[in-house]
């Protein structure tokens, strides 16, 4: 009864103004446009620059076609190294993420464990993998190992967070049941926690492999191995036809990985 009394004034109001102008939206839009002009002037973005850019872009595109696959051995070598970086980083990253994810879950770990672990995961996630790669290039030296280490950090940032969230969503009933039998902490994990989250873990791992593959094609820009180094070198030498060949190869690799992981995901369901 009390419900029916409520909508009446609202219905009346909307009947009076069917398509009321949204003043909040308009003011926001005007502010946004004002900001755009301010920021564009700060960054020295002008129409003249844009028009010269279009001409340059045309010349650039003209030099990119046809793609030059003559140095396909170099290309293949880089791609294979990228795949290796992605595989290793995913395996190591997932192995490290499992315990970290469990420790970060607030329903299983006490707050003085989950708090610091969550902070560590947040820091891993906040730093862009290319920046992490720079640091590891200094620490480990040029080459694929630095790329693997950087992507392991990135994997921990994402996979451990997703694991922790999945563990926090489990039903606590099996956990209590197993605990009530006097089982050890390890047995509780294996028989009550992991069966509830295992299939989601597999999904996250697959997603992480996919995303590591994308990122491993880039860490080479700072010298951490993979096809990115070849790409950056080709850019620096203005070998734009080789650049377009590399870009096509990277896009093909990523699309292929997306199709395969999509198939696996569909088969798991």
């Amino acid at each position, binding site marked *: 009864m009390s419900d029916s009394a409520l909508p009446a004034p609202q219905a009346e109001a909307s009947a009076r103004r069917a398509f009321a102008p949204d003043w909040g939206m308009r003011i926001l839009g005007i502010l946004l446009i004002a900001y755009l002009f301010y920021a564009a002037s700060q960054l020295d973005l002008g129409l003249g620059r844009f028009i010269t850019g279009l001409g340059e872009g045309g010349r650039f595109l003209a030099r990119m076609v046809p793609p030059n696959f003559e140095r396909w051995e170099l290309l293949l070598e880089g791609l294979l190294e990228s795949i290796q970086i992605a595989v290793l980083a995913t395996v190591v990253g997932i192995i490290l993420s499992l315990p970290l994810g469990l420790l970060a879950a607030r329903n299983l770990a006490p707050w003085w464990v989950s708090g610091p672990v969550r902070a560590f995961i947040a820091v891993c996630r906040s730093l862009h993998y290319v920046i992490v790669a720079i640091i590891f290039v200094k620490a480990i030296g040029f080459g694929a190992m630095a790329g*693997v280490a950087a992507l392991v950090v990135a994997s921990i940032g994402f996979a451990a967070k997703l694991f922790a969230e999945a563990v926090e969503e489990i039903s606590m009933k099996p956990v209590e049941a197993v605990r009530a039998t006097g089982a050890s902490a390890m047995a509780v994990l294996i028989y009550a926690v992991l069966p509830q989250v295992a299939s989601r873990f597999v999904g996250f791992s697959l997603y992480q492999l996919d995303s590591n593959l994308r990122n491993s094609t880039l860490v080479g820009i700072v010298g951490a191995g993979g096809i990115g180094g070849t790409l950056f070198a080709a850019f620096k030498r203005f070998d734009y036809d080789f650049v377009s060949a590399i870009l096509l190869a990277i896009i093909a690799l990523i699309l292929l990985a997306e199709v395969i992981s999509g198939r696996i995901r569909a088969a798991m369901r």
Partner: protein
Amino acid sequence: MSATTTTGDTLAPLRREWIRHTPAERLTRWVMTLTIVAATVWAVRTIDIIPEFLIDAPEQMADLLLRMWPPDLAYYPTTVHGALIETLHIATLGTVFGFLMAIPLALLAARNICRIPALNALAQVGLVASRSVNSLVWALIFVAVFGPGAAAGVFAIAFRSIGFVGKLLAEALEEMNPGPREALRAAGAPWGAEMLKAVWPQIRPAFWGVALFRWDINVRESAVLGLVGAGGIGVVLEDAINFFQWDQVATILLAILAVVLVAEIVVTRVRARLL
């Protein structure tokens, strides 16, 4: 017949051996495990591992951290602050330009808005192409087009955002309720009014959600674009690294970390209030 079978078999169901997975399931599990192990072994055996580099890695890491401490905070007001503001401008402008280009593509890609299958497919190809090229690669391309500077960064961020934003907006458009549109069309409303009064109110929550999410990602990404010369704080970072000024590097990294964390908090707060 029942008499003969029940004599010895009353306990048969209890004696049956229970197996958790069917043979096919077990086979796929084995194949998956084998693939993972084989891929790992292949990667470990063929990847370039230089033992000398690996052995002194902890030493080098400790050396790096010692050189980074204490961070050169006096460096912040002179150089880092301006570059940080530039990075935020790049991220925001890039997000807005990305949306300006993504909205038409999303409208073309949504099958309930644009009824021509060929145009749907074309728009999808555009979105996929934008997504499969990383923002750093877009930055390399636009540095070649516009020359080094913030303009290349803005365009790199914008072109990278198109695919992500366009895909999510097209999905939101396809999921909406056709009722309000049909009602407006029946009343004789033109296309523009239909979009503004029937479509926009339905996708507004998704739109702001995507905008905030993408802006957050763009703030992170624009911090590294400078490594390839596309403006922002990355340029300062690259310079500091090339001069081995590790205490300045530490300041820059702390500044980036702070901005990323603040952006995340702002986005979470605004989203909680909006949605």
